[in-house]
C-alpha cells in the first residue's frame, strides 16, 4: 500500500517540480534543433547553434558574474565575430557577418519573447506553461545592456558543475577541506565559484521581483521557491564563511611563523582577498534579499488592491472603435502618451503656403481719394447738441401752453407732450434734468434772462427764444403743490403749477 502511495506521489505530486527543473534545458534543445540550412540559402550550414549558445552563455557569465559588468550589443557582436572566424572559419564580408550575428542574437532571445515550455500538470489536470529567458535587457541612462538570466546560469552550471539547493554551502565545506589540506590555489578557485554563485542569486532576486511585478500569482510561487532555496541557507553560509576565515587566518599565522609555509604566502593572501570579496558580496545578497522581502510585501498588497479594479483593455477599446469605423479616435490612446509640446514654432509649411499663394497677374493701381479733413466732434459736444435739441422740444411745448393758458400744472404739460411726441419722453433722462434745472428758480422773465442768463437752463431758454421771437416779454412763476405724479418703474415726481403774468404767488 505504502509502495503504491510512493509511486503515485513520485508520479503525480513531484511532476510539477521535475518540470520546473527541466524547463531550463528547453531553450537549449529548441535552439539546437535549429538548422542554418534555410538561412541565406545554406551559406552557413556548418554553424552549430548548440555550441554557439553555450559559448554565448559562457561569455555572459564571464562578463556578468565574474567581472560584474553588463554587456552591450557591440561587445556581444565582437565576441561572436571572433567565434565565427575562429571556430567556424566564416570568411564572409563584415556586413553579412553582422547580419548573421544579429540573426543568432534574435534566435537566442526568441525574437524578444520568452521561450514557453508547455507541460501537463497532473495535480490540476490541465496543461500549463512556463516561461524561460536566457538573456535579459535593461535600459540604463538611455543605453541598452544585456545580462544572463539565473535560469541560463543554472542551466550552464548544470551541464558540468554539480548543483544543489545551496551551492555556497557545499563549496564552503569543500573550501574548508582544501584549506585544511593546504591546497590554497584550489581554495581560491572554489571561492571564485562561490562569487559566481552569489552573482547568480543576485540576478535571480531581480528576476523574482520582475515576475512579482508582472504576475503576482506566479511571482508569489517563485518568491517562495527563492526563499526556500536561498534565504534559509543564509545562517549556515555565514557560519561557514566565518569558519573559513578563521582557517585562513590560522594558515597565515602559521605561514608567518613556519618557514615551510612561507612559499604558500602569496596563495594564502590571494585566497583571503577572494574570500573577503565573497563575504562582502554575500552580505550584499543578504541585504538585497531583505529588500526583496519588503518589495514583495508591497507588491502583494498593491496587487490585492488592483485586483478589485478593472483594467483598461486596449483590444476591447479597439473593437469598439472598429465597430464605429473611426480610426481617427485611436488618437485617444496615442496623444496622452506623447511628450509635452512646449516649443511653439512658426510652421514652415506656412512659408510654403505663402510662397505658393497666387499673386495677381498685374499690379493694380491704388486710387488715392482726395478727402477733406472733417471737423472733429467730441463726445460732450454731441451730448450738448442732443440736450439743446431735447430742451428745445420741452420749452416749445411749455411756452406754447403759456401763450394759451395762464395757469396749468406739470401733469398738463406732460399730457401735451404725450400728444405731440408720444410716451417716449417719460423715459428720456433729459426731461428730468430739464425739470431739475427749471425748479432751480421760481421766476423766469424772458427779456431779462436773454440779457443776463444766470443758470444753465436760462442760457438754453435764451438760445431758444433768439430763434423763436414770439415768446419775448413772457414772464412766469413756478408754484409747488402736494400732488405727486407716479410713474411706476421709473420715478415719482412732485407736481408743480406754472403761473403766467405778474406772479401773485403764495411763495
Amino acid at each position, binding site marked *: 500500500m505504502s509502495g503504491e502511495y510512493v509511486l503515485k506521489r513520485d508520479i503525480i505530486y513531484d511532476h510539477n517540480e521535475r518540470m520546473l527543473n527541466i524547463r531550463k534545458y528547453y531553450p537549449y534543445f529548441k535552439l539546437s534543433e535549429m538548422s542554418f540550412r534555410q538561412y541565406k540559402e545554406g551559406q552557413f550550414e556548418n554553424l552549430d547553434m548548440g555550441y554557439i549558445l553555450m559559448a554565448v552563455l559562457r561569455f555572459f557569465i564571464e562578463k556578468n558574474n565574474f567581472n560584474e559588468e553588463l554587456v552591450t*550589443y557591440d561587445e556581444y557582436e565582437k565576441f561572436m565575430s571572433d567565434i565565427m572566424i575562429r571556430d567556424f572559419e566564416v570568411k564572409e564580408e563584415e556586413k553579412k557577418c553582422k*547580419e548573421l550575428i*544579429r540573426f543568432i542574437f*534574435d534566435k537566442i*532571445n526568441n*525574437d*524578444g*519573447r*520568452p521561450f514557453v515550455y508547455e507541460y501537463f500538470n497532473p495535480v490540476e489536470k490541465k496543461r500549463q506553461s512556463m*516561461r524561460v*529567458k536566457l538573456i*535579459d*535587457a535593461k*535600459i540604463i541612462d*538611455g543605453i*541598452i545592456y544585456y545580462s544572463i538570466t539565473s535560469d541560463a546560469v543554472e542551466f550552464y552550471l548544470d551541464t558540468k558543475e554539480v548543483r544543489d539547493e545551496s551551492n555556497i554551502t557545499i563549496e564552503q565545506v569543500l573550501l574548508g577541506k582544501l584549506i585544511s589540506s593546504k591546497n590554497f590555489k584550489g581554495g581560491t578557485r572554489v571561492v571564485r565559484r562561490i562569487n559566481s554563485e552569489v552573482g547568480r542569486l543576485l540576478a535571480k532576486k531581480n528576476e523574482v521581483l520582475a515576475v512579482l511585478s*508582472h*504576475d503576482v500569482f506566479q511571482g508569489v510561487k517563485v518568491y517562495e521557491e527563492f526563499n526556500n532555496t536561498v534565504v534559509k541557507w543564509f545562517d549556515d553560509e555565514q557560519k561557514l564563511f566565518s569558519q573559513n576565515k578563521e582557517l585562513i587566518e590560522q594558515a597565515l599565522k602559521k605561514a608567518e611563523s613556519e618557514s615551510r609555509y612561507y612559499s604558500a604566502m602569496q596563495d594564502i593572501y590571494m585566497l583571503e582577498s577572494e574570500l573577503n570579496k565573497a563575504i562582502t558580496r554575500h552580505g550584499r545578497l543578504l541585504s538585497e534579499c531583505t529588500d526583496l522581502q519588503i518589495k514583495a510585501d508591497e507588491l502583494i498588497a498593491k496587487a490585492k488592491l*488592483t485586483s478589485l*479594479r*478593472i*483594467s*483598461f*483593455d*486596449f*483590444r*476591447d*477599446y*479597439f473593437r*469598439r*472603435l*472598429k465597430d*464605429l*469605423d*473611426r*480610426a*481617427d*479616435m*485611436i*488618437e*485617444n*490612446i*496615442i*496623444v*496622452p*502618451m*506623447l*511628450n*509635452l*509640446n*512646449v516649443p511653439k514654432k512658426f*510652421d*514652415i*509649411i506656412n512659408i510654403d503656403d505663402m510662397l505658393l499663394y497666387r499673386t495677381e497677374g498685374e499690379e493694380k493701381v491704388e486710387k488715392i481719394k482726395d478727402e477733406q479733413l472733417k471737423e472733429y466732434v467730441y463726445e460732450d459736444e454731441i451730448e450738448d447738441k442732443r440736450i439743446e435739441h431735447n430742451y428745445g422740444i420741452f420749452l416749445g411745448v411749455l411756452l406754447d401752453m403759456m401763450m394759451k393758458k395762464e395757469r396749468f400744472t406739470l401733469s398738463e404739460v406732460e399730457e401735451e407732450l404725450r400728444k405731440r411726441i408720444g410716451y417716449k419722453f417719460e423715459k428720456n433722462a433729459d426731461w428730468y434734468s430739464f425739470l431739475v434745472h427749471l425748479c432751480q428758480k421760481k421766476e423766469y422773465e424772458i427779456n431779462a434772462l436773454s440779457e443776463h442768463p444766470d443758470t444753465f437752463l436760462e442760457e438754453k431758454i435764451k438760445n431758444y427764444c433768439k430763434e423763436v421771437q414770439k415768446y419775448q416779454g413772457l414772464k412766469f412763476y413756478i408754484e409747488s403743490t402736494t400732488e405727486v405724479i407716479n410713474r411706476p418703474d421709473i420715478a415719482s415726481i412732485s407736481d408743480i403749477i406754472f403761473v403766467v403774468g405778474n406772479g401773485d404767488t403764495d411763495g
Partner: protein
Amino acid sequence: MDNRNLEKALEIFSCLVKGEEISAGKKETASLYEEYIDNPEVYDIVMTMCRKMNLSLYEYNDTLYISPGKGNRVFGYSNEELKKEIGIRLNRELYLCYFVMFGVITRFYSDTSSETFTEYVRSEDIIAAVDSMLASTLKEINLMSLDEVEENSFQAISGLWEELPLVVNEDAVSVKASKGSKAGYVKLVFNFMEKQELLLQNDGRYYPTGRLKALIENYFDENKGELYNLVKGAVKDAAYQQNQGE
C-alpha cells in the same frame, strides 16, 4: 505656504515642463525627487499645478513622468504639428501612423495590467501585427462596392496600407523612414516614438522605455471612464447623423 516649498515645487514643475526627467537615480534630480516624495506640501503644490494645467503626473520606478492628456490645447500637439513631427501630410496618413503605434503598444500590453512579456519589437513584427489587425477590414473592403470612404475610417487606412509594397529595395537592414513602403511607415513611427521617449532602439530592436510603461500602467486606468465616454459620444453622433440622413 512656505516659500521654500513653493520654490521647490516650481523647480520640479519647470523641470517637468522642460522635458527633463526627475528621477531618484539621477544625481542632478535626485534631491527634487525626494522633495516630491517626502514633502507633502511640495507634492500638493506640484499636483495642483498639474491639475490646473490639465496635465497628469505619474511616478514609476522612482521616476516622474508627465502627460499632456487628451485635448490639451497648451501642452498637447495639434494634428498639424503631429503630422509635421512624424513627417507626413495627410490626415489618413496620420491615422495609419496612430494605428501602427497602437500595434506597437498592444505588442507590449494587451491591457493595462498585463504585460505580454515581450521584451522588444522589430519592424517585421509590427508589419505582421498591422497586417493581421487590418486583415478583417481588408476583407470587408474587397467585398464592398466602390463607395467613397471617409478619411478617418478603418477602410481608408486599410486601403492606404494595402497599396504599399513591403519594402522599396530588397535591403531590409537599411530601411529608411518614408511613406513609400510598409517598412518605411513603421520606421517613421518608430523614429517618432523614439523621439517621444516611448521606445529605445538598439540595432533594429525597439525596447519600451519607463515612460511608456508608466503611462500605460497609470493613465488609461485613471481615465477609463472618459475614454469610453468619448466612444459613447461618437456612437450617439453616428446615430444622429443616420437619422438625419433618413
